[in-house]
């Protein structure tokens, strides 16, 4: 599928520079794409991938450099201008209107009209046809927000491709999809590729890059490291190119020996559950222990975490913290009891974008202390400086609004917020989603250090190898039910997948079916 180097590229970016508030995000970055190829753009957080894409799609104006589309220089000043040039984009966070129907989202700005009125039957028909082209079945009349996330993602792609795009840019399109959904997305992308669309695919998943990409461009520190054919590039080499040093992908962290069995549990859930969210489950957690929650997206992992943290009130069961029974009615009570929870949705539930990095870091500790026991500004600054240093948060200074940081650094700041409260139990829900390999290891290494000093950890991730690597015990969830609990030692990915894939027992209630 790889086009010969002789063929003229459909898109050619050369020497792109971009600075933000004095910090160089791009330094002479380049990118070439050919028609009919899937091109993976890879790099760590902060490598400049999204910035490069945003220069291309008219979100940012590059400070220097040249962009050629089919040989002609272009300077898209707005996303709309880029769209008109045939450059369509699907961003990491789905940028659609959840209150509007799928049809409206797909056809917004170009709804078919008759006599000046919107021709709804034709609009729905056309939207349905576009979605069917991507092998998606969904009721296009329903508000988008009621459709599963995967379908929303496909709608975003449908919107992009239905504008006769010559270049389609996908920024982390699979970060909110499960495997089956990802596979379906890939099928759709392959069909688009075969129609001659040049697809730029930004991802952190090595597997997906190798499965999909015809070519890979690696970025590091705002520069383009090089362009490679997947066949010529080993995974280890790719990772070390991204990181800039040789890197051991396997076994960077070793599970610690489990704490002695007679250690008193710090957290004990008995029959905890909530109708429609999570079937009652039992869980025990001892101090210094790492419990992994494995399961597919929507299997009840997040619901379990929210029940433990009091973010969702259970309607059955009991929770004991440090041997003491307690009913958590509000996350504030959980925080008082030494619980901490990094939610899955970093942007909507984690960071407070307009507040500074410092304020974001001290937030939970200040909430735990109450409004009267104010943490003096100097102490706040010291706390922030300490975590910026220890977790390697990349920011110009602690007073920058956290919204300006890259995703991985935002995640580190949210983690810092909780570490500052010195929790007894830390719940991490997909802490490494949308984060590069090196940051992942840094974050996990920091957390495991704390576990060695007695903190208990509940670790939730879609990536089973990651769960296995850190967990002493693994609880497997399926269809909102805790179905198995295993010792982490000697457990293999295949075994976990087998548990997840087991046919549900007959007595279990029918899982809620998605429209897709």
């Amino acid at each position, binding site marked *: 599928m790889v086009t010969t180097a002789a063929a003229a590229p459909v898109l050619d970016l050369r020497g792109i520079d971009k600075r*933000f*508030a*004095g*910090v*160089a*995000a791009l330094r002479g970055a380049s990118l070439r794409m050919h028609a009919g190829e899937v091109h993976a753009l890879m*790099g760590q*957080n*902060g*490598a*400049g*991938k*999204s*910035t*490069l894409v945003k220069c291309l799609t008219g*979100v*940012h104006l590059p400070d220097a450099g040249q962009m050629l589309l089919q040989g002609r220089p272009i300077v898209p000043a707005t996303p709309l201008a880029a769209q008109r040039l045939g450059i369509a984009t699907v961003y*990491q966070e789905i940028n659609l209107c959840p209150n509007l129907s799928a049809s409206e989202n797909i056809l917004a700005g170009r709804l078919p009209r008759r006599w000046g009125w919107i021709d709804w039957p034709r609009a729905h028909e056309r939207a349905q046809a576009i979605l069917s082209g991507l092998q998606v079945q969904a009721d296009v009349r329903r508000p988008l927000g009621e459709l599963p996330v995967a379908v929303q993602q496909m709608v975003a792609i449908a919107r992009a491709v239905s504008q006769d795009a010559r270049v389609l840019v996908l920024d982390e399109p699979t970060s909110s999809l499960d495997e089956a959904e990802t596979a379906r997305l890939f099928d759709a992308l392959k069909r688009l590729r075969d129609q001659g669309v040049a697809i730029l695919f*930004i991802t952190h998943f090595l597997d997906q890059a190798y499965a999909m990409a015809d070519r890979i461009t690696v*970025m590091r*520190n*705002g520069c383009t490291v090089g362009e490679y054919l997947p066949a010529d590039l080993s995974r280890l080499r790719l990772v070390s190119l991204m990181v800039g040093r040789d890197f051991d992908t396997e076994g960077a962290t070793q599970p610690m020996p489990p704490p002695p069995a007679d250690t008193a549990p710090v957290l004990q859930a008995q029959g905890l559950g909530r109708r429609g969210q999570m079937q009652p489950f039992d869980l025990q957690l001892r101090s210094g222990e790492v419990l992994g929650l494995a399961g597919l997206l929507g299997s009840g992992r997040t619901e379990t975490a929210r029940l433990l943290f009091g*973010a969702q009130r259970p309607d059955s069961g009991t929770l004991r913290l440090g041997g003491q029974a307690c009913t958590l009615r*509000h*996350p*504030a009570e*959980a*925080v*008082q009891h030494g619980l901490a929870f990094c*939610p899955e949705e970093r942007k*909507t*539930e*984690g960071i*407070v*974008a*307009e*507040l500074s990095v410092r*304020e974001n870091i*001290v*937030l*939970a500790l*200040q*909430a*735990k*202390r109450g*409004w*009267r026991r*104010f*943490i003096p*500004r100097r102490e706040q600054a010291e706390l922030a400086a300490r975590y910026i240093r220890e977790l390697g948060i*990349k*920011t*110009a*200074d602690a007073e920058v*609004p956290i*919204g*300006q*940081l*890259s*995703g991985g650094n935002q995640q580190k700041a949210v983690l810092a917020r909780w570490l500052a409260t010195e929790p007894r139990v830390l719940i991490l829900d997909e802490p490494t989603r949308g984060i590069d390999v090196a940051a992942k290891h840094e974050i996990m290494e920091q957390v495991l250090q704390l576990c060695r000093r007695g903190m208990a950890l509940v670790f939730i991730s879609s990536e089973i190898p990651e769960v296995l690597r850190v967990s002493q015990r693994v609880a497997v969830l399926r269809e909102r039910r805790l179905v198995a609990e295993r010792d982490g030692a000697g457990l293999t990915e295949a075994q976990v997948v087998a548990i997840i894939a087991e046919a549900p027992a007959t007595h279990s209630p029918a899982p809620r079916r998605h429209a897709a």
Partner: protein
Amino acid sequence: MNTATAPARRPRPWRHPQFWPAATLLALLLLNWAFNPGFVSLSWRDGHLVGPLIDIANRAAPLITVALGMTLVIATRGIDISVGAVVAIAAAVAATLIGGNLVIQDGQQVYVARTPMALALLAALGVALLCGLWNGLLVGVAGIQPIIATLILMVAGRGIAQLITQGQIVTIYYKPYFFIGAGYWLGLPFAFWLALGLAAVMGWLKHRSALGLFVQASGANPAAARLAGIRAGALLVGVYAFCGLTAGLAGLMISSNVKSADGNNAGLLLELDAILAVTLGGTSLLGGRFSLRGTVLGALIIQTLTYAIYSMGVPPEVNLVVKAVVVGVVCLVQSPAWLQWRPAQADRA
């Protein structure tokens, strides 16, 4: 990315959040001065300063007071449109309790209050606090949208004030009470001192307690603030109650200044001026970051503008239009599109 050295920031005063409000106020003051050379004249009479600037400070005091309370409400993504009605209620309570008679004893004027003044003031402020508490419970506990929740009291409040005054305009004949709204202390209007004192106390609480952080965090991202352990419900109740209290204080200033309480007209449309003052001061109606200094500037802008319109002899019929034009310009100048702010979303690659 180089993070070790902080980037040298070029000084850009117009990016400072209070630059435009301050510039607007200055421009309005200069405009007044240009039209009326006596505008900046200050003289000392009867133990206090006299002059147009002092008038503006005195008249702006109730608006500053209400707008300060409103700032907190708006920072939590809320709005309180009942403050005008609460002003009327507090004024009615104070006026009815004090009332006052002019008595001549041995050829001397003696002022007699129906109820001890301290008690009357406490009662008026207490009732205002209760009004705010009611709003807070509707918003923070019952979860009603702020504009609807406070609409209830906005409509009902005028009726309550009428009930208290029995449909009459209650005149106050008790001289010590006039000090609040018309008295002077250290040469400046006492009400202005009150408003500034309120701003100072709030500024202290914002920067020396965690309340500023909590209000801004739960206004900017309620979901994240909740998960971080902030109890938004209690916070909202407190914020609305406080806003009610500031409205009550403004009610005392106004009724003391005009020596009467009118259930129908006291504080009429004050909520809109207060919201305007907050907006002019640069606090976003979307919640989050708030600026007390900006609000004080905003309230002074409104009062100076009103003064300018009257003193320049603009016909009263068009003065609302003039006000609207000025406000529109100030809001436009502060809008992101105008400032061409750098995109908030930096590199997230």
